């Protein structure tokens, strides 16, 4: 019973639940997303009956999905469909939004992240890269070293330097910055700044990397580098990427989830979803027939 699930008030209780009023009808959609994905082994991330509200507005409706470890999953859908909201529920970034509340479960490695999990620890395991690169106004080195320092994750200066180098190499930035590690990060190009943010996220050795439109502000060459990086990183990380660019989703991801009006409409192998989607709504979206 959905109503029997505990409601977690993230930022103070909301006295009225009138969420359904604000949304158009979703009649005709199956209760569960269409999917031909067969899961073998334990999922890295699993959401079960997840509902999410911004005050009175319901942004996510009964999202149940399992994301496989060490693959790239892309979330696509029109603006306001809930894909970024769902991404942010995976490391509880929505907690800071006033009036936000969540219902249902998000399990990472089988553990409900909304039940007694330390948010700081959670975000160390579930790193995030945002649409707009946001380096700290510090040196390149200090940007990457920051998380390691505040979490006291290294015991010596040489270990710290080693981890910074490793992270910059993983983010395919090392060769470009190794001779100017102590220059300001703000002097880097947009694409380099974004890769620096990826290096910063990787430095604390997360399991999962969430990327919210990581290449939308970049030129085609910088975008290609980010996409190559995503491809390379998936052997070590479980990656979830939100993108408006369907070609990008098709290029970088193994699985794709299509969201519409807060509902997960279809979740399938990327190749299947972009060549032969099962749902008419998905077909209409990926072929540009939304009018």
């Amino acid at each position, binding site marked *: 019973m959905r109503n029997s699930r505990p409601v977690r008030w993230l930022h103070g209780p909301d006295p009225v639940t009138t969420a359904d009023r604000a949304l158009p009808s979703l009649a005709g959609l199956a209760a569960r997303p269409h999917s031909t994905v067969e899961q073998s082994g334990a999922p890295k991330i699993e959401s079960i009956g997840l509902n999410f509200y911004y005050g009175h507005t319901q942004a996510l409706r009964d999202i149940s999905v399992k994301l496989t470890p060490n693959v790239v999953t892309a979330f696509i859908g029109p603006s306001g469909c809930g894909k970024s909201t769902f991404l942010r529920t995976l490391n509880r970034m929505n907690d800071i939004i006033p009036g936000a509340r969540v219902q249902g479960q998000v399990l990472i490695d089988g553990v409900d992240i909304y039940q007694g999990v330390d948010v700081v620890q959670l975000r160390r395991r579930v790193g995030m890269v945002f649409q707009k690169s946001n380096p700290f106004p510090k040196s390149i080195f200090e940007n990457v070293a920051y998380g390691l320092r505040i979490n006291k994750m290294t015991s010596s200066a040489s270990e710290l330097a080693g981890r910074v180098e490793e992270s910059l190499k993983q983010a395919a930035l090392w060769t470009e910055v190794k001779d100017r590690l102590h220059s300001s990060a703000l002097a880097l190009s947009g694409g380099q700044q974004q890769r620096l943010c990826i290096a910063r996220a990787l430095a604390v050795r997360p399991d999962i990397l969430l990327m919210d439109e990581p290449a939308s502000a970049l030129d085609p060459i910088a975008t290609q580098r980010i996409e190559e990086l995503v491809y390379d990183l998936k052997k070590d990380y479980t990656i979830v990427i939100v993108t408006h660019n*369907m*070609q990008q989703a*098709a290029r970088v991801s193994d699985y794709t989830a299509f969201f519409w009006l807060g509902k997960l409409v279809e979740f399938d192998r990327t190749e299947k979803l*972009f*060549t*032969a*989607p099962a749902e008419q709504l*998905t*077909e*209409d979206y*990926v*072929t*540009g*027939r*939304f*009018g």
Partner: protein
Amino acid sequence: MDRVVPHFQEELEALQSRLLEMGGLAEERVRACIEALESRDVSLVAQVMGGDEPINQLHIEVDNRCFRLLALYQPMATDLRAIVSAVKINTDLERVGDLAVNIAEAAQRYTAHPPVKKLIDIPTMGTIAQTMLRDALDAYVRRDTALAHAVLNADDELDALKTQVFRDLLTYMIKDPATVEPALDLILISRHLERIGDHATNIAEDVIFMVSAQDVRHHPPAHERA
């Protein structure tokens, strides 16, 4: 729903109409070469032999249209399947045009000799091949997978007739060596018609893929599966 990019829809429709124009030309050429063979009409034979250019031009045009649509719009799902299918159907139709020329060439050689026999099976094969081609194109226009499946089934009949033509003509050749040369041309013609049926089959398979995303190629026919 309305398309966000109406221009793309217009381009797709233009692509489809050019393919159909090509299909109509190919079908007409198959009809003409069989008529020329039956009536021993040398001028019609020459007309078929020299008339491949419009199909060749359309072959290039359709390919260019497909390349342009793929490059500019990066289509997905049904649109992607429609364009990939168009590329393949285009090649099949162009080959049908070439086979009509091959039939006309064989007919030209054949008419230089007295007739080996009254032609019965070869005109039947011509009619079946034309029907298959027409049905495959109708299935394409109407997105009709049932009709496309019917085309696949019709191919067996064409294959059987080809074997029958060969056996039949073999007896003539054994009896009278003077018939060997013209009889071989008839055998070649039956082979070309059977190939036209194969191209119609390919088109039908592409239609099924385009409409339902099912790949039915290289599957054993229903009677063999049973």
